[in-house]
């Protein structure tokens, strides 16, 4: 019966997904529990900050610049129809600070740093480095996972802020310098409309949540990967797909909670 078979497949997939969510949550709790070492020996986090944060700088800055420039162009096209091109600054800044900064930076972070984390930990597992560490009486969650987790959580908001800041300048470059929108109204309308708490801090909060989720997914997939070449490559793909979907879904939920009030 193909129909019952389809239902079976759906049931199996659902049970499997719930299982994985449960396992990932337990993994997350263990990571938090064993975070003490990372803070007592902060250079462990610094080392990971280099590979997650610093190595993502270039892609974040270049992407931010171009997204800002596109926003400047498209925004001008739309706004000038209503004769309100002086609101270009508002549009660029709000779009970046509320949505595009946190979301696009997190998507880039997932594919740049997240996939690298999964591959690295998956390979460590495949080459028995994790078992070796365990046999040396060193907890791999405390020594390998927790520092990477905190590095991800710390770098994500900083990267998102850089993305937005660079993007605003991209919009400024196209809007004010290329097209010739009035510079004064560009900045002043922006400042009047962008609220520090409502917009900027909420954006930072979003990127903090995204950073946590992406890093946990990446680390979990790596730690859970079957110790084979296909296992690791499959886990890397799953990290990018799962965390991208998680970012977009969470973004909707967070936006609904944060900005529905007005």
């Amino acid at each position, binding site marked *: 019966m193909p129909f019952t078979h389809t239902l079976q497949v759906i049931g199996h997939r659902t049970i499997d997904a719930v299982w994985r969510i449960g396992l990932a949550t337990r993994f997350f709790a263990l990571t938090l529990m064993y975070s003490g070492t990372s803070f007592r020996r902060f250079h462990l986090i610094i080392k990971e*900050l280099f590979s997650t*944060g610093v190595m993502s700088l270039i892609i974040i800055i270049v992407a931010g610049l171009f997204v800002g420039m596109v926003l400047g162009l498209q925004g001008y096209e739309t706004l000038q129809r209503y004769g*309100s091109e002086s609101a270009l600054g508002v549009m660029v800044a709000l779009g970046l600070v509320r949505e595009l900064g946190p979301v696009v930076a997190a998507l880039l972070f997932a594919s740049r740093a997240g996939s690298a984390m999964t591959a690295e930990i998956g390979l460590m597992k495949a080459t028995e480095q994790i078992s070796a560490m365990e046999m040396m009486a060193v907890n791999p969650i405390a020594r390998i996972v927790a520092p990477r987790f905190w590095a991800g959580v710390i*770098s994500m908001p900083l990267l998102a802020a850089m993305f*937005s*800041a660079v993007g605003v300048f991209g919009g400024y470059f196209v809007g004010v310098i290329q097209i010739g929108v009035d510079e004064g109204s560009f900045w002043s309308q922006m*400042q009047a409309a962008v*609220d*520090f708490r409502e917009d*900027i801090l909420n954006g930072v909060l979003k990127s903090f949540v995204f950073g946590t989720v992406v890093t946990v997914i990446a680390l979990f997939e790596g730690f859970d990967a079957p110790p084979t070449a296909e296992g690791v490559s499959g886990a890397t793909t799953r990290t990018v797909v799962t965390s991208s979907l998680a970012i977009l879904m969470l973004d909707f939920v967070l936006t609904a909670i944060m900005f529905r009030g007005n």
Partner: protein
Amino acid sequence: MERTTLDLWVGIFVVAGIAALVMLAMKVGNLSSYNMSETYQVHAYFSNIGGLKPKASIKSAGVLVGRVTDIKLDMQRYEADVVMNLDKRYQFPKDTFADILTSGLLGEQYIGLVAGGDSDMLQNGEQIKKTQSAVVLEDLIGKFIYNKAEESVKPK
């Protein structure tokens, strides 16, 4: 990689990130104009506030002098009670006139203050008595159509 170069790069990264945040707060956001050193509070009743919202700006002669902090419906008068914080540096006479205005045709609404001639100044907690409500675009269009309709009936 040497430990010191690594530390240096991470240092640069963190400082750049924080600088970006500060830049967003000061240059893009309104944190720099947020801290109106000291304020005093006045309130006013409007029969209709239109689309006025908390945190809307209060301007006099186009200069930002304060912000709306609270809007509620007064159940005795069935009018909107608007509480506003004004900058202590700007003092207004008791007979100041408060208008709800719109910036541009579709822009957001704000309160405009036009100073009167009284020699006594508004004190903390006092009420601005002279107010003019928001111009509601739909009402205006409604009136316009009604008038037009009347005009076209009259000649007959």
